[in-house]
């Protein structure tokens, strides 16, 4: 189930290396030139070419494209003739990040064949020929004693796969298409994966699934580095807002993490768990109100991927989704209020938050954990050697636990009155199947399994996000330790009541 354990490791290594090099280039005395050199520095003359590429030139072309994403631009929309050095200048001068955060590197994408059904060598050319008989579209014929599928006629229904007594027929899958819960990515006529941004819910599952690392996030790292570099001149403080999942990402204590972030140049660090506490209180209140009004169920609303799913694909669900805002929303509101004029940067485990931030003027930028990690590498920060630094506002145990699947429902439950108990249903990751389930609940106006549905787009919750650094098991352990040393939200709640 752990998303991270099946993240293709080699590709995340490459993506992170590019980020480190982009950051080092920015911090050097010649950003443009050093950016231009990235593909050459990574594959110098006479270096070995990985055996999955034809030649060093193609390999460098691909690294160039990856660098484009690192600079925050769309790979599809960038012309081949544009120099990386020019793009570096453009990145530095840009006022706002580009809108959709995902981009596909088509040159790396050629590697896999379009999804189709295929008769393998195991075909015995049997007399019964159940495949031929069962195909409603007449797509299968026998040639040279073996079954052959006519791709023109085949509708990918898969009936032949089920009836073959030798299990000789297989479906070749395209990992990104297979992982996308809403059918928003598919290969086009040229065999290149293409994202349909009208359908895309920004969950990032394609990015995790692609073994060629062809789906990239457009990074906002240059934008943030620029804010930090000019903060004195601009007289703008730069504030980090760290989502709960971050506390499971690096080998250090929460206090050391804060200190390490200050070393990057941020002026202050807020725990987004602080905003999660407001989400919990508001959502518990809302749940009670809804049930008293006779509603059958309510879903949570903190996951950005899920929110985009509802808005784009299950509008009937909007009514059942809680109106409570996300932890990022509340935290950003507090941070902007306490630091007028400051720049806020959200530290996110996933790409979906980049989309959410586009619609929230209190969140200026979003960086993911790979980008933060790369930044620490570029500056040579060893987190475990940092001093301890305390957070001004302590968040609750429940808020800090939001990033583990089930954590949100559990937090809301803590604050419910005894007369109105919740029966939580946990959707641990969006898949084609769970999307169908959610559609059913919305259509029927009820869910037979319970009344409080927590939806997490990623398996494992935020700790399974597409741009996390740590493997999920140790991340859960680390976050749980932090949760166990924190106070329950119940105590805060009782205090406020008195």
């Amino acid at each position: 189930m752990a998303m991270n354990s099946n993240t293709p490791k080699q590709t995340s290594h490459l993506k992170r290396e590019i980020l480190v090099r982009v950051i080092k280039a920015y911090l050097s005395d010649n950003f443009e030139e050093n950016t231009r050199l990235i593909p050459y520095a990574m594959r110098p003359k006479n270096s070995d070419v990985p055996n999955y590429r034809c030649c060093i030139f193609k390999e460098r072309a691909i690294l160039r494209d990856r660098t484009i994403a690192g600079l925050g631009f769309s790979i599809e929309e960038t012309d081949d003739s544009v120099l990386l050095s020019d793009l570096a200048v453009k990145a530095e001068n840009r006022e706002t990040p580009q809108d959709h955060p995902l981009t596909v590197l088509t040159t790396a994408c050629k590697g896999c064949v379009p999804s189709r059904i295929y008769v393998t060598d195991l075909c015995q050319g049997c007399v019964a020929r159940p495949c031929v008989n069962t195909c409603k579209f007449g797509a299968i014929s026998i040639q040279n004693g073996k079954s052959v599928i006519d791709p023109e006629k085949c509708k990918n229904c898969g009936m032949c796969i089920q009836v073959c007594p030798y299990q000789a027929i297989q479906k070749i899958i395209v990992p990104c298409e297979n992982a996308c819960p809403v059918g928003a990515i598919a290969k086009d006529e040229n065999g290149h994966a293409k994202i349909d941004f009208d359908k895309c819910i920004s969950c990032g599952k394609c990015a995790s699934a692609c073994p060629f690392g062809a789906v990239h996030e457009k990074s906002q790292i240059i934008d943030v580095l620029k804010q930090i570099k000019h903060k004195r001149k601009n007289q703008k403080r730069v504030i980090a807002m760290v989502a709960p999942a971050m506390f499971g990402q690096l080998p250090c204590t929460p206090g050391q993490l804060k200190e390490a972030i200050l070393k990057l140049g941020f002026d202050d660090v807020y725990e987004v768990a602080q905003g999660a506490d407001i989400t919990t209180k508001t959502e518990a209140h809302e749940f009670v109100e809804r049930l008293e009004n006779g509603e059958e169920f309510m879903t949570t609303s903190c996951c950005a991927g899920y929110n985009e799913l509802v808005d784009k694909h299950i509008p009937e669900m909007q009514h059942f989704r809680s109106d409570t805002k996300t932890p990022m929303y509340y935290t950003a509101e507090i941070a902007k209020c306490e630091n007028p004029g400051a720049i806020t940067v959200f530290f996110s485990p996933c790409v979906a938050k980049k989309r959410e931030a586009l619609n929230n003027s209190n969140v200026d930028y979003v960086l993911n954990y790979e980008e933060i990690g790369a930044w620490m590498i570029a500056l040579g920060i060893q987190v475990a050697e940092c001093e301890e630094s305390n957070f001004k506002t302590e968040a609750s145990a429940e808020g800090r636990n939001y990033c583990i699947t089930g954590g949100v429902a559990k937090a809301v439950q803590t604050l419910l009155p005894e007369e109105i108990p919740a029966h939580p249903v946990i959707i641990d990751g969006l898949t084609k199947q769970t999307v169908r389930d959610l559609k059913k609940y919305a259509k029927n106006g009820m869910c037979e399994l319970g009344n409080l549905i927590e939806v997490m787009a990623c398996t494992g919750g935020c700790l399974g996000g597409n741009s996390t650094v740590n493997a999920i098991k140790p991340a859960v352990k680390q976050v749980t330790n932090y949760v166990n040393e924190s106070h329950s939200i119940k105590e805060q709640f009782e205090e406020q009541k008195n």
Partner: protein
Amino acid sequence: MEKQISVKVCLGTTCFVMGSSNLQELIETVPKKYGNKVDVAGVPCLGLCSIDWEFSKAPYVKVDDEIIKEATVEKVLKAIDEKLK
């Protein structure tokens, strides 16, 4: 008693981000597989990542005196097996 093989998995920040996060499982699985023939531990920065541009070869694992670059679970297990031969 035979000399133990020492396996040091670098859990410094550079190695961790570049992939030793995925090597933490070795700390549990290696003792199960090899018993006390192998001594495995996560260690702070081995100092290899800060030399020039060597961050790109992280994560590092040391098996006795041998340094494994761009370490993976498979590479480390293979190195242990070699030593035990």
